[in-house]
């Protein structure tokens, strides 16, 4: 979901995605490359992202990933589920003893 979200801001390559997640999360989240690439390839196979070879801003050839329409829908539904889950957890966490 994070990868998809990152890609919503524009197409990006693997290194860029890991950097982006790190910076936007304020260095809290570090994406392991060991999960990033398998995840990217899985997303590609599921048709949620599309990949293309391009030159990067530093003039380095890199594989850029772009979110697809299907990917956007997936992201929306994932986000919704995430929201529900957070709300549920929030409810449990803020519940006072005896309420239940």
């Amino acid at each position, binding site marked *: 979901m994070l990868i998809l979200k990152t890609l919503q801001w524009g197409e990006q*390559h693997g*290194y860029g995605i890991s950097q982006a997640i790190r910076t936007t999360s304020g260095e809290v989240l570090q994406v392991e*490359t*060991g999960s990033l*690439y*398998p995840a990217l*390839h899985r997303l590609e196979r599921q048709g949620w992202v599309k990949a293309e070879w391009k030159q990067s801003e*530093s003039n380095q050839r*890199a*594989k850029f990933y772009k979110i697809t329409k299907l990917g956007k829908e997936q992201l929306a539904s994932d986000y919704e589920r995430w929201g529900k889950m957070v709300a549920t957890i929030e409810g449990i966490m803020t519940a006072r003893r005896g309420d239940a």
Partner: protein
Amino acid sequence: MRVFPFFRRKTDLREEIESHLKMATADRVARGESPAEARRAALREFGNVPLIADVTRERWGWLRLERLTQDLRFAMRQLRRTPAFTITVLLTLALGIGANTAIFTLVNSILLRNLPVADPKMLVRFGNENDCCVSGETEDSGNYSLFPTETYELLKQNLPEFEELAAIQAGYGNPPIIARRDGTQEARSAMGEFVSGNYFRTFGLQPRAGRLLADTDNLTGVPMTAVMSYETWQSDYAGDASVVGSTFWVNTKPVTIVGIAPKGFFGDRISSTPPDYYLPFESMPVLANVPYVHEPHTRWLYIIGRVKPGVAMGALRDKVNVLLRQAFSAIPALYKTTELAKVHVVLTPGGAGIQQLQEQYSSQLHLLMWIAGLVLLIACANIGNLLLVRVMSRRAELCIRTALGAVRGRIIRQLLTECVMLACLGGLAGLIVAYAGAEMLLKLAFPGAANVPIRVSPSMPILGFACALSLVTGILFGVGPAWIAAQTQPVEALRSGARTRAASASRLQRALVVLQAAVSLVLLVGAGLFSQSLNKLQSTDLKLDTRNRYIVHINPQTGGYSQTQLDALYRTIEQGFHALPGVKNVGICSYTPMEDNNRDDYVQIQGQPPSGKSASWVRSNSEYFDSVGTHVVMGRGIGVQDTPTARTVAVVNQTFVKEFFKQGSNPIGQHFGPEPATTGDFEIVGVVEDTVYTSVYWKNHSMYFIPMTQRPASWKRPLEHDESVYAGAIVIETQRPMNDMEKLTRTTLAAINPNLTVEQFERFDQQISDRFTEERMISRLSTLFGTLALLLTSVGLYGVTAYSVAQRTPEIGIRMALGAGRGGVVGMVMRGALIQTVLGLAIGIPVALICIRYVKAQLYEIASADAQVITIAIATLAAAACIAGMIPAQRAASIDPAKALRAE
């Protein structure tokens, strides 16, 4: 566009990762790190590059295949790196699998194969016995497989359940026919099978040329016809199309060849002498001069039929039995009410034809299968052992691979790949061995037979069998070592270096060697027994002389001679051969010693109570006893004075005397005959030694010999119908070995009459040696396999001992440093090797003794393993074990303690 998207994606991924690393490096450089350091840091941050690449690729779903090719290439590399190991394993496998496939090829082509006919499943044979060939008596068991012509015709008319019901002469080729193509001089001895007119139709066959036999051919009085086999057409007449429709002189009578049987059809049974001609059986009285074709009580036909689909076999059998009893009840003299009640027939599947050969060879083939199976067992144990040693010596490598992140399952898969690959390669090599071996087996089983209808050419079931066998073997010996390898703890292995030994591995190894030793012993004892049996057979005193003797089989009957012409013919033959320089004796007889023939009759001595015993008898001329080397021990042999008009005399053998006369009484001058009413038939004029006739296995064989053409006055059957006066063989004794005797014989006989062809020409010793073919085959093969087993076991023992020495090098070094002598070290290593051998012997000896029970039937005068055979087997195994143990022991003793300890 690239052809292989898979490879493109693989390079893509590599490039992608590389670009990631480059960008990360570039960022770090921008932050002021040195390029080298930046690269290292980027790599560290990235993690295990190949592993991540692997995990990523797994998402594609291609990895399984990719891993397989990787494993295969890796296995190939590993095998090439250790050629000695690979060659040993491949040889072991090739021999193990090869031997098994060879035997299976033979089994497949003899025991399991159907006749090459249309829809063999629908064929049903009447009877399950291979009774042969002509019988006028009842069966005590009431189970019939041989039938009279009239019974066949009755069955055929009353069984609409069959599409066709065919009858076949049971004992075809005995005697062979003589065929001469019209317009040629050369008459050939050939196999003729007399069959019913619907024979080919029953088998659903189409002619290769012309037409096949029809019902109208099988009538009395019609012009005689025959169908030639394709093989004969090709080999004797070069496929000449004009053969069809031409006249052949069969046993001097004109027969038209109406067609050629289909290619590959070898008759209704597997035989080393398949029929050359198929003739309608109604022509048999004319052609073969036999009286029995329409005798109601004489049974001489096999019956085989093609049932209609959906016929219930149980009801059919009951109906056949009723019909059979009805047919037999027409001969009340022979089939009394009690006999009749027992009469029945067993309906058997007829797809494989008449199973004479199958019955003859099945016990031998099964025995060979067992032997070959045991050899394969040893081979597998050996390979298991070799692989175990290999895995153990590669433990360090495996540990490092595990430590580097190799998954345990992957390692096992790799080892298994290696095994299966070895097994497949071995299977391939084994297949080559198998074809050579099957060819050899066939030659051993049917020496000198030109037309054995058994093909050892590649066939799918055999290929499948070899592949399955090699795969099972591969998995069998792959699992053990792989399982042990999977138990390796990387830390432990890396920590303790070469000193740790997997206890379970070494136990497994030793157990395998013990098993090998035990099985080898069993095979060695078996080899010893069969060799001993063959030796005993061959060294039996046959009471004859084979030096410079030649046996010529002839048949004056098929040569067109009538009984009244025979006396003159025999004189002419004697004179003809005596005219050849170097010929010493010319014997003429109905059959010779040690050939597959016999004729017997009841014997009743004059003045004695009815004996109920019988004896074999042979007609012979005056020079016969000398020509085969039978000595006269009392009285005289048959002489020139014993003419047809002289007093009828007989010469008996010593067993005959023992059997029929009290000890000490003089048999000379006594009279005997076949029945109580005819005891005056023959006067005994001499006694000869017990020359062995028919088979060495026939003990206490009483025999008598009478002159070629003498006939007692009491014999009712006229001379014109007495087949016994026809000679079957000429025995020629020469003064020195004569290489051109065969040619001389043929020209001599052809000069007398071109129709008097040679059925078979053999040296006397060849004829005798042919009678031991099966025994020789078993003996040779069991020795071969025994040696193979011994060799494999030695290799196995050597491997285990050498491995343990290598493992214990530091320990032995310490022992020697502490003062252990070289002798002590040798003793210690040898003890280890010998304990396994002794354990193997302890298991093997009782097993061997038990196994003898199952092969006793195939041994000659050997009931149990004698001490000699067992001692030799034990000594051979022990000697092999000593040699196999000595080499590593010597190596252990030559360990330099200083070096061994420094290596620590």
